[in-house]
């Protein structure tokens, strides 16, 4: 312990540093605490929040809007998206199942970004803890009902317009290229 100046000596004798610390803690005692009382109060969810997944329901067909291109599954860093497609009667690709393994998802949002048709979404729901693995394995039906429950109507539209501008809006598909068309309009 080397004391160089008189000031340092005075600091040591009168516990100046400790008194400063005490003043700080005392001032904090009377400040507002930052705790959010979670189940009672909830944190404000900012726009563009990445929560539980949803699959956009096509209002025309009543089934998924997804075309089964597999871009999201290819981009997905944790490889947790499983897409099962079959060939329909008219030779078109039909998405049979689109499933997400929530326990492996890292909520990066790349799938939403990758999707050219705005067919997947991340909702604002983050309270879906459960007791079994099965409950957290999102089947197509669960994903679609999530969309109906959480993102239907204006909210879903705004979601894509504001945060995930679908590529198909910015870059039109060249003529002659095989593109997805809504069923029945062929």
């Amino acid at each position, binding site marked *: 312990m080397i004391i160089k100046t008189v000031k340092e000596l005075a600091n040591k004798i009168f516990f100046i540093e*400790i008194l400063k*610390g*005490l003043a*700080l*803690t*005392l001032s*904090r*005692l*009377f*400040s*507002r*605490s*930052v*705790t959010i*009382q979670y189940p009672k109060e909830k944190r404000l969810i900012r726009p563009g929040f990445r929560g539980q997944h949803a699959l956009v329901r096509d209002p025309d067909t009543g089934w998924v809007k997804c075309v089964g291109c597999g871009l999201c599954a290819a981009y997905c860093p944790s490889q947790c998206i499983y897409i099962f497609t079959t060939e329909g009667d008219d030779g078109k690709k039909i998405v049979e199942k689109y499933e997400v393994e929530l326990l492996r998802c890292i909520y990066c949002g790349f799938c939403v970004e990758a999707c050219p048709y705005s067919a997947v979404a991340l909702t604002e729901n983050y309270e879906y803890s459960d007791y079994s693995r099965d409950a957290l394995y999102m089947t197509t039906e669960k994903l679609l009902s999530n969309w109906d429950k959480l993102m239907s109507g204006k909210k879903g539209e705004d979601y894509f317009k504001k945060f995930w501008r679908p590529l198909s809006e910015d870059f039109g598909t060249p003529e002659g290229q095989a593109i997805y068309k809504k069923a029945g309009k062929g």
Partner: protein
Amino acid sequence: MTIDTLINIGINIGISIINIAIVFTVAMLHVAYATYFERKVIGHMQVRLGPMRVGPHGLLQPFADGLKLFFKEDVIPANADKPVFYLAPVIFLVAALTSLAVIPYYQGFVIADINIALLFIFAMSSLGAYGIIISGWASNSKYAFLGGLRSAAQVISYEISMGLSLVGVMIMAGSLNLTEIVNAQYESPYGFFAIPQFIGFIVFVIAAVAETNRTPFDLPEAESELVAGYFVEYSGFRFALFFLGEYIGMFIMSSIGAICFLGGWTIPKYITDILPFLSYVPGIVWFLLKVYAFIFFYYWIRATVPRYRYDQLMAIGWKILIPVALANIVITGLLKIKILL
């Protein structure tokens, strides 16, 4: 012996038992809420809320904690020294509780008004250290043992400086009886012995924190290095006994501080001269206010100062506090002789 004396003795014993029951109950409730306020105060100092769930603002939290501890499994290590293991928390708590008997809460309310009260409290706090040391030994665990050894060294070092810091008060009051110390303070022109004995007061406050094994001198139970120190192996109600002992120890040290340096249940005459209505406030209120101020200081310092290194702890005790306290005694003694002559 006549019937009358027997009846008198009976009445006195009855009164004593009632007094003991009152003090014991109040002390236990006090401990329960001391833990609550500690968590609240430290929580708010760290910009958190502290307990909020059990009851409004977490007011029933102490009872929830107590119930939980009561129903916990009592685990005893296989290689523990069983009889000593059972005995240690009892010694610790009994030593702490016994000290409650000699503390005067207000004029005339003291279970045992003995002339060596201050000495008795020193003795009891030293006995409490036995509880800590033998619990560390009996647990047969390296963490507990290290905690016990640290506590032994720490309590011995700081007991000296605490005793010496109070010698100044003894010289000024001319008594070891706590009631007489309070009365001497009331009669003195200062009102508080903390004013003429400010060196002793500072030494006492630091030593009291170390004596009760509280942060920043909580090396015997240093959570980050010794898990919980001497009571690592204790669980359930035995753990609760240590916990109770620690908080009652804090209450006693705060009471000694309030009685010896801040005038106990009295307030200085120069204050009542200016604000006469204050003399209508009952003494117990002043006493508790002073004690709570001390206890708040314990919490405050815990929320502020990090733990000292062991050599720093020893250096503060032996190289600073003891010489300062000794100098204080010499000065006080000389002044006393000078004034008396």
